[in-house]
């Protein structure tokens, strides 16, 4: 298949899934209290767009702030852990331990500390996206080929020289791969926090809508989240291609 055909095929699949959904609901007469049709979701979305907008903005804001802090901390920790075997071996079990805690469980603690609202959402988004970044950056730096390291050391390169010229550039593809995972996870984090303790945001909106049995509205929330998620994913893919395109062996 040519690239164009391939793009067409994936677009056709997406449209097909929604058409199938619409048809199944119509044929079996499924109530919109259980599963609203895509067309109902879309019309609800358009109808309530002015009301949805502030919530979407809030979610985007908390997610992005959390994500930026998460990336900064994750990158710093990843470099630290990746550039020393001792740090890697020492800190890894702790990291795995922390990361295996379900992040939903820490939201109440954040609420206890900072009160309901924006701060817990930001913190949850941040903490949920740190781990994949740390692991990927650390792996990228720690797995420099031993021969390359010998070549560098034979030139009397310092640890900093090696990190700067080899380790960091080398870990960029890993870093961007983790960014794409992290940005979607950050949405999960902020929406969870909004669901539990907030009076604003898509998560909160969906909670209220479901308590009023406004199921099309709940799905409209999902639609907003997936559009935001896809948009950010696409942005980072674009940056990735610019910065770490060499890893994909394209262009010159």
């Amino acid at each position, binding site marked *: 298949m040519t690239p164009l055909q391939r793009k067409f095929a994936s677009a056709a699949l997406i449209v097909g899934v929604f058409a199938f959904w619409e048809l199944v609901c119509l044929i079996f007469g499924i109530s919109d209290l259980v599963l609203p049709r895509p067309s109902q979701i879309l019309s609800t979305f358009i109808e309530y767009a002015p009301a949805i907008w502030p919530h979407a903005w809030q979610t985007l804001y908390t997610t992005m702030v959390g994500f930026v802090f998460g990336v900064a901390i994750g990158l710093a920790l990843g470099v630290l852990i990746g550039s020393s075997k001792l740090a890697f071996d020492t800190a890894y079990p702790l990291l795995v331990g922390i990361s295996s805690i379900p992040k939903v469980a820490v939201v109440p603690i954040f609420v206890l500390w900072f009160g309901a609202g924006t701060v817990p959402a930001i913190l949850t988004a941040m903490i949920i996206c740190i781990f994949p970044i740390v692991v990927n950056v650390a792996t990228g730096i720690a797995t420099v080929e031993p021969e*390359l390291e*010998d070549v560098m050391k*034979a030139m009397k390169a310092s640890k900093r020289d090696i990190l700067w*010229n080899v380790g960091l*550039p080398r870990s960029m593809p890993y870093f961007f791969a983790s960014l794409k995972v992290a940005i979607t996870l950050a949405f999960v984090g902020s929406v969870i926090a909004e669901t539990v303790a907030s009076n604003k945001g898509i998560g909160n909106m969906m909670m209220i809508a479901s308590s009023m049995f406004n199921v099309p509205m709940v799905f409209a929330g999902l639609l907003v989240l997936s559009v935001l998620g896809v948009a950010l994913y696409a942005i980072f893919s674009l940056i990735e291609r610019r910065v*770490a395109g*060499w*890893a994909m062996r394209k262009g*010159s």
Partner: protein
Amino acid sequence: MTPLVHFDEVCVEYDAGREKTLALQPTTLEVAKGDFIALVGPSGCGKSTILKLASELLAPTAGHIFFAGRELGAEPVRVGMAFQSASLLPWLSIRDNVMLPLKIVPPFREHYRAKRKGEYRDRVDALLAQVGLLDFADKNPWQLSGGMQQRANLCRALVHDPDLLLLDEPFGALDQFTREELWSTLQDLWMARGSTVLLVTHDLREAAFLANRICVMSARPGRIIEDRQVTTPRPRQISQTFRPEFVSIVEQLRELIVHAPAAPQIPEAAQ
């Protein structure tokens, strides 16, 4: 005349848990400035260990290494190193890959910012032209064949005019024709620059074609069991390697390695 590098009764032990393995028996080797020495021997005999010692990647367990009459480590020795895998950096162009040592090794690094677009670039390009890679200077490594990558690797090892060029089976992964081409390239580079070269190889033809001296090592724990001069005049031609006198050198080397006397074990040395 003091030799450029002098290994004086150097021996190396590796700590593997409780047991200590002797990798290199007390070895003495003198390398004259501008010489081309090939180290051959069965695998695991400590050939690469000698390169690691010379590049200060490894410290000897006992004995001393002198560089130009002074103990190694007293002052920085400029070393260039190349391995079997070209290990070029895929995010840099070939030119920038070759320029890497100029960014790291003093005294070049102090002027890197000022000269990378002028003097250093010309220096790199001249070297690339010498090995026939100038047209590929702006390409990325993966766009080049294995042989071309290895040429770039040689350039990277040479660009900072190292006192000592250490090559660890640099052509081991290449096909026969490419390998022979690169032998000639390396010979040309060596003759033009007068570098001092230590070459580790499994290929006895390669050793006999390239080197002035061939040191044959015994199986682990290694020691030098034969030190032979190759007096064939330069520049040598690949076709010469099929002549009887050349073939007989290779045959003798092979005999030496295959029938190398089992190394006497000296467990006391492990203490």
